[in-house]
Protein backbone atom coordinates (compact mmCIF):
# COMPACT_ATOMS: atom_id res chain seq x y z
CA UNK A 1 0.00 0.00 0.00
CA UNK A 2 1.41 3.38 -1.00
CA UNK A 3 1.53 6.16 1.64
CA UNK A 4 -0.90 9.07 1.59
CA UNK A 5 1.68 11.67 0.59
CA UNK A 6 2.68 9.71 -2.49
CA UNK A 7 -0.94 9.09 -3.42
CA UNK A 8 -1.84 12.79 -3.08
CA UNK A 9 0.99 13.71 -5.46
CA UNK A 10 -0.45 11.26 -7.98
CA UNK A 11 -4.10 12.29 -7.73
CA UNK A 12 -3.73 15.08 -10.30
CA UNK A 13 -2.14 12.74 -12.82
CA UNK A 14 -4.75 10.07 -12.04
CA UNK A 15 -7.57 12.53 -12.73
CA UNK A 16 -5.92 13.49 -16.02
CA UNK A 17 -5.54 9.80 -16.97
CA UNK A 18 -1.76 10.02 -17.14
CA UNK A 19 -0.96 6.99 -14.93
CA UNK A 20 -0.35 3.42 -16.04
CA UNK A 21 -3.07 0.85 -15.45
CA UNK A 22 -1.36 -0.60 -12.36
CA UNK A 23 -0.64 2.80 -10.81
CA UNK A 24 -4.14 3.98 -11.60
CA UNK A 25 -5.65 0.92 -9.90
CA UNK A 26 -3.40 1.43 -6.86
CA UNK A 27 -4.49 5.09 -6.50
CA UNK A 28 -8.14 4.22 -7.01
CA UNK A 29 -8.02 1.50 -4.33
CA UNK A 30 -6.34 3.88 -1.87
CA UNK A 31 -8.90 6.62 -2.47
CA UNK A 32 -11.72 4.22 -1.71
CA UNK A 33 -10.24 3.31 1.66
CA UNK A 34 -8.66 6.68 2.75
CA UNK A 35 -10.97 9.53 3.65
CA UNK A 36 -8.23 12.20 3.79
CA UNK A 37 -6.99 11.39 0.31
CA UNK A 38 -10.60 11.14 -0.88
CA UNK A 39 -11.09 14.70 0.36
CA UNK A 40 -8.03 15.86 -1.61
CA UNK A 41 -9.43 14.15 -4.71
CA UNK A 42 -12.76 15.96 -4.32
CA UNK A 43 -11.05 19.34 -3.96
CA UNK A 44 -8.98 18.74 -7.09
CA UNK A 45 -12.06 17.62 -9.04
CA UNK A 46 -13.89 20.79 -7.97
CA UNK A 47 -10.95 22.94 -9.08
CA UNK A 48 -10.77 21.19 -12.45
CA UNK A 49 -14.49 21.65 -13.03
CA UNK A 50 -14.26 25.35 -12.15
CA UNK A 51 -11.35 25.88 -14.53
CA UNK A 52 -13.05 23.99 -17.33
CA UNK A 53 -16.23 26.01 -16.88
CA UNK A 54 -14.30 29.28 -16.96
CA UNK A 55 -12.43 28.30 -20.12
CA UNK A 56 -15.57 27.13 -21.89
CA UNK A 57 -17.42 30.35 -21.07
CA UNK A 58 -14.51 32.61 -22.11
CA UNK A 59 -13.29 30.78 -25.24
CA UNK A 60 -15.86 32.20 -27.71
CA UNK A 61 -14.86 35.72 -26.74
CA UNK A 62 -11.20 35.23 -27.60
CA UNK A 63 -10.32 36.48 -31.08
CA UNK A 64 -8.08 33.78 -32.51
CA UNK A 65 -8.40 34.78 -36.15
CA UNK A 66 -6.29 37.92 -35.91
CA UNK A 67 -3.64 35.92 -34.06
CA UNK A 68 -3.54 33.26 -36.79
CA UNK A 69 -3.44 35.88 -39.50
CA UNK A 70 -0.41 37.40 -37.80
CA UNK A 71 1.31 34.03 -37.66
CA UNK A 72 0.52 33.40 -41.33
CA UNK A 73 1.87 36.82 -42.31
CA UNK A 74 5.12 36.17 -40.44
CA UNK A 75 5.51 32.78 -42.17
CA UNK A 76 5.00 34.23 -45.65
CA UNK A 77 7.16 37.30 -45.00
CA UNK A 78 10.43 37.35 -46.99
CA UNK A 79 13.37 37.39 -44.59
CA UNK A 80 16.12 39.97 -44.95
CA UNK A 81 19.63 38.64 -45.70
CA UNK A 82 20.96 39.97 -42.41
CA UNK A 83 18.34 37.95 -40.50
CA UNK A 84 19.66 34.78 -42.18
CA UNK A 85 23.23 35.86 -41.37
CA UNK A 86 22.27 36.51 -37.77
CA UNK A 87 20.66 33.07 -37.47
CA UNK A 88 23.70 31.43 -39.09
CA UNK A 89 26.11 33.19 -36.75
CA UNK A 90 24.00 32.20 -33.74
CA UNK A 91 24.24 28.58 -34.89
CA UNK A 92 27.98 28.91 -35.44
CA UNK A 93 28.63 29.96 -31.89
CA UNK A 94 26.15 27.59 -30.32
CA UNK A 95 27.68 25.73 -27.39
CA UNK A 96 28.08 22.26 -29.03
CA UNK A 97 29.97 23.69 -32.03
CA UNK A 98 32.24 25.82 -29.87
CA UNK A 99 33.07 22.73 -27.83
CA UNK A 100 34.38 21.08 -31.01
CA UNK A 101 36.00 24.21 -32.37
CA UNK A 102 38.23 25.03 -29.39
CA UNK A 103 40.31 21.82 -29.49
CA UNK A 104 40.18 21.84 -33.31
CA UNK A 105 41.73 25.33 -33.44
CA UNK A 106 44.38 24.32 -30.85
CA UNK A 107 45.16 21.23 -32.94
CA UNK A 108 45.50 23.20 -36.17
CA UNK A 109 47.82 25.72 -34.49
CA UNK A 110 49.97 22.92 -33.08
CA UNK A 111 50.21 21.20 -36.46
CA UNK A 112 51.13 24.49 -38.14
CA UNK A 113 53.73 25.19 -35.49
CA UNK A 114 55.33 21.81 -36.03
CA UNK A 115 55.61 22.03 -39.80
CA UNK A 116 57.81 23.97 -42.15
CA UNK A 117 54.80 25.87 -43.46
CA UNK A 118 54.83 28.11 -40.40
CA UNK A 119 58.52 28.72 -40.52
CA UNK A 120 58.61 29.31 -44.25
CA UNK A 121 55.76 31.77 -43.90
CA UNK A 122 57.51 33.76 -41.21
CA UNK A 123 60.94 35.23 -41.42
CA UNK A 124 62.01 34.52 -37.85
CA UNK A 125 64.28 31.65 -36.98
CA UNK A 126 65.49 31.12 -40.56
CA UNK A 127 68.93 32.66 -40.10
CA UNK A 128 71.79 30.44 -39.10
CA UNK A 129 72.87 31.29 -35.59
CA UNK A 130 76.60 31.30 -35.00
CA UNK A 131 77.26 30.20 -31.45
CA UNK A 132 81.05 30.39 -31.50
CA UNK A 133 83.92 31.11 -33.88
CA UNK A 134 87.60 30.50 -33.31
CA UNK A 135 89.77 31.52 -36.26
CA UNK A 136 93.07 30.98 -34.46
CA UNK A 137 94.09 34.61 -34.57
CA UNK A 138 92.81 35.41 -38.04
CA UNK A 139 90.21 38.06 -38.75
CA UNK A 140 86.65 36.91 -39.29
CA UNK A 141 83.53 38.75 -40.45
CA UNK A 142 80.00 37.63 -39.84
CA UNK A 143 77.37 38.77 -42.33
CA UNK A 144 73.64 38.28 -42.13
CA UNK A 145 71.97 39.08 -45.40
CA UNK A 146 68.32 40.00 -44.83
CA UNK A 147 66.93 39.39 -48.31
CA UNK A 148 67.98 35.76 -48.68
CA UNK A 149 68.32 35.04 -44.93
CA UNK A 150 71.86 33.93 -45.54
CA UNK A 151 74.52 33.87 -42.85
CA UNK A 152 78.09 34.22 -44.07
CA UNK A 153 81.23 33.55 -42.05
CA UNK A 154 84.10 35.22 -43.86
CA UNK A 155 87.64 34.32 -43.06
CA UNK A 156 90.32 36.89 -43.87
CA UNK A 157 93.12 34.43 -44.36
CA UNK A 158 96.79 35.33 -44.53
CA UNK A 159 97.74 35.57 -48.20
CA UNK A 160 101.39 34.60 -47.67
CA UNK A 161 102.40 31.43 -49.44
CA UNK A 162 99.76 31.82 -52.11
CA UNK A 163 100.76 32.24 -55.72
CA UNK A 164 101.09 35.60 -57.42
CA UNK A 165 97.39 35.74 -58.01
CA UNK A 166 96.87 36.06 -54.29
CA UNK A 167 97.08 39.81 -54.59
CA UNK A 168 94.00 39.72 -56.72
CA UNK A 169 92.26 37.69 -54.04
CA UNK A 170 93.20 40.15 -51.33
CA UNK A 171 91.81 43.01 -53.38
CA UNK A 172 88.63 41.15 -54.12
CA UNK A 173 87.62 40.56 -50.54
CA UNK A 174 83.84 40.94 -50.41
CA UNK A 175 82.50 44.39 -49.73
CA UNK A 176 79.58 43.34 -47.56
Amino acid sequence: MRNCEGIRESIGSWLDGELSAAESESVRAHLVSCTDCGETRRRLEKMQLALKAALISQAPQIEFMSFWRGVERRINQKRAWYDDLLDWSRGLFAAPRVAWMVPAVIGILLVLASTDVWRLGGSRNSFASVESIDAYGRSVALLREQETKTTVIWLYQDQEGENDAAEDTAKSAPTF
Partner: protein
Amino acid sequence: MTLLKTLRNRLRLFSLIVVLVAGWVGAAEKNPQSVQVRIRTILAGNKSDEFDPKLKDMEQQLKPLKYRSYRSLKDDSQNVPWQGTRSFEIPGGRLLTVAPQEYQNNRVSLKVRLTEGDKPVLDTAVGIQNKGNFILGGPPHEGGTLVLLISAAAQ
Protein backbone atom coordinates in the same frame (compact mmCIF):
# COMPACT_ATOMS: atom_id res chain seq x y z
CA MET B 1 22.95 19.99 -17.16
CA THR B 2 23.31 16.79 -19.16
CA LEU B 3 24.27 18.83 -22.23
CA LEU B 4 26.88 20.74 -20.26
CA LYS B 5 28.32 17.50 -18.88
CA THR B 6 28.49 16.00 -22.36
CA LEU B 7 30.20 19.10 -23.71
CA ARG B 8 32.70 19.13 -20.87
CA ASN B 9 33.50 15.47 -21.42
CA ARG B 10 33.92 15.99 -25.17
CA LEU B 11 36.16 18.98 -24.57
CA ARG B 12 38.32 16.94 -22.19
CA LEU B 13 38.51 14.04 -24.62
CA PHE B 14 39.54 16.26 -27.52
CA SER B 15 42.05 18.16 -25.44
CA LEU B 16 43.59 14.83 -24.47
CA ILE B 17 43.72 13.72 -28.12
CA VAL B 18 45.26 17.04 -29.14
CA VAL B 19 47.91 16.80 -26.42
CA LEU B 20 48.73 13.20 -27.41
CA VAL B 21 48.95 14.08 -31.11
CA ALA B 22 51.12 17.12 -30.34
CA GLY B 23 53.37 14.95 -28.20
CA TRP B 24 53.62 12.38 -30.96
CA VAL B 25 54.39 15.04 -33.57
CA GLY B 26 56.98 16.59 -31.26
CA ALA B 27 58.57 13.22 -30.55
CA ALA B 28 58.71 12.42 -34.26
CA GLU B 29 60.42 15.74 -34.87
CA LYS B 30 63.04 15.15 -32.19
CA ASN B 31 64.16 11.74 -33.37
CA PRO B 32 65.87 12.02 -36.74
CA GLN B 33 68.54 9.35 -37.05
CA SER B 34 71.16 11.27 -38.98
CA VAL B 35 71.91 14.42 -40.94
CA GLN B 36 72.52 14.73 -44.66
CA VAL B 37 75.36 17.23 -44.90
CA ARG B 38 76.08 18.79 -48.27
CA ILE B 39 79.15 20.87 -49.02
CA ARG B 40 79.28 22.84 -52.25
CA THR B 41 82.69 24.28 -52.98
CA ILE B 42 82.75 27.34 -55.21
CA LEU B 43 85.63 29.36 -56.57
CA ALA B 44 84.78 33.03 -56.59
CA GLY B 45 86.88 35.61 -58.42
CA ASN B 46 86.96 38.81 -60.37
CA LYS B 47 88.88 37.81 -63.50
CA SER B 48 85.80 37.10 -65.60
CA ASP B 49 82.04 37.36 -65.50
CA GLU B 50 81.49 33.60 -65.66
CA PHE B 51 78.63 32.29 -63.58
CA ASP B 52 78.47 28.50 -63.42
CA PRO B 53 74.94 27.33 -64.41
CA LYS B 54 75.23 24.61 -61.71
CA LEU B 55 75.02 27.39 -59.15
CA LYS B 56 71.86 28.93 -60.55
CA ASP B 57 69.83 27.87 -57.48
CA MET B 58 72.09 29.80 -55.13
CA GLU B 59 72.62 32.91 -57.22
CA GLN B 60 70.68 35.09 -54.79
CA GLN B 61 72.65 33.80 -51.81
CA LEU B 62 75.98 34.55 -53.52
CA LYS B 63 74.97 38.04 -54.53
CA PRO B 64 76.04 39.76 -51.28
CA LEU B 65 79.62 38.55 -51.78
CA LYS B 66 80.10 40.95 -54.74
CA TYR B 67 82.43 38.76 -56.80
CA ARG B 68 82.12 38.80 -60.58
CA SER B 69 82.60 35.09 -61.29
CA TYR B 70 81.53 31.92 -59.54
CA ARG B 71 82.56 28.41 -60.56
CA SER B 72 81.49 25.16 -58.88
CA LEU B 73 84.51 23.03 -57.93
CA LYS B 74 82.93 20.24 -55.88
CA ASP B 75 79.59 19.08 -54.60
CA ASP B 76 79.77 16.44 -51.84
CA SER B 77 77.06 14.92 -49.67
CA GLN B 78 77.45 12.59 -46.73
CA ASN B 79 75.07 11.10 -44.20
CA VAL B 80 76.39 11.85 -40.73
CA PRO B 81 75.01 10.29 -37.54
CA TRP B 82 74.34 12.47 -34.50
CA GLN B 83 77.50 13.08 -32.52
CA GLY B 84 79.46 11.53 -35.38
CA THR B 85 81.93 13.34 -37.64
CA ARG B 86 82.58 13.31 -41.37
CA SER B 87 85.34 15.04 -43.29
CA PHE B 88 85.05 16.65 -46.68
CA GLU B 89 88.08 17.32 -48.82
CA ILE B 90 88.34 20.93 -49.89
CA PRO B 91 90.65 22.04 -52.73
CA GLY B 92 94.03 23.36 -51.61
CA GLY B 93 94.82 20.49 -49.22
CA ARG B 94 92.08 21.57 -46.82
CA LEU B 95 89.66 19.46 -44.86
CA LEU B 96 86.25 20.43 -43.57
CA THR B 97 85.05 18.32 -40.64
CA VAL B 98 81.37 18.47 -39.73
CA ALA B 99 79.86 17.07 -36.51
CA PRO B 100 76.08 17.33 -36.03
CA GLN B 101 75.32 17.96 -32.35
CA GLU B 102 71.57 18.08 -31.84
CA TYR B 103 68.22 18.65 -33.44
CA GLN B 104 65.72 20.90 -31.71
CA ASN B 105 62.83 23.08 -32.85
CA ASN B 106 63.49 22.20 -36.48
CA ARG B 107 67.09 23.42 -36.17
CA VAL B 108 70.29 21.48 -36.60
CA SER B 109 73.35 22.34 -34.52
CA LEU B 110 76.67 21.65 -36.20
CA LYS B 111 80.29 21.92 -35.19
CA VAL B 112 82.45 22.76 -38.20
CA ARG B 113 86.22 22.73 -38.37
CA LEU B 114 88.37 23.81 -41.32
CA THR B 115 91.97 22.65 -41.39
CA GLU B 116 94.82 23.24 -43.79
CA GLY B 117 97.20 20.30 -43.59
CA ASP B 118 97.67 19.84 -39.86
CA LYS B 119 96.89 23.45 -38.98
CA PRO B 120 93.41 24.38 -37.77
CA VAL B 121 92.05 27.39 -39.60
CA LEU B 122 88.58 27.82 -38.18
CA ASP B 123 86.37 26.23 -35.54
CA THR B 124 82.74 27.23 -35.35
CA ALA B 125 79.45 26.06 -33.87
CA VAL B 126 76.42 26.94 -35.93
CA GLY B 127 72.70 26.34 -35.59
CA ILE B 128 70.82 26.27 -38.89
CA GLN B 129 67.25 25.68 -39.82
CA ASN B 130 66.62 22.12 -40.97
CA LYS B 131 67.34 21.94 -44.73
CA GLY B 132 68.89 25.38 -44.43
CA ASN B 133 72.45 26.46 -45.07
CA PHE B 134 75.17 28.97 -44.35
CA ILE B 135 78.25 30.17 -46.19
CA LEU B 136 81.82 29.85 -45.07
CA GLY B 137 84.20 31.76 -47.29
CA GLY B 138 87.54 33.44 -47.53
CA PRO B 139 90.33 30.88 -48.05
CA PRO B 140 92.35 31.83 -51.14
CA HIS B 141 92.66 29.33 -53.97
CA GLU B 142 94.05 29.52 -57.50
CA GLY B 143 93.84 33.28 -57.69
CA GLY B 144 90.34 33.37 -56.37
CA THR B 145 88.52 32.77 -53.13
CA LEU B 146 86.84 29.62 -51.91
CA VAL B 147 83.21 29.84 -50.89
CA LEU B 148 81.69 26.84 -49.12
CA LEU B 149 77.94 26.46 -48.94
CA ILE B 150 77.23 24.13 -46.02
CA SER B 151 73.71 22.72 -45.76
CA ALA B 152 72.17 20.13 -43.42
CA ALA B 153 68.94 18.16 -43.56
CA ALA B 154 67.83 15.95 -40.68
CA GLN B 155 66.87 12.48 -41.94
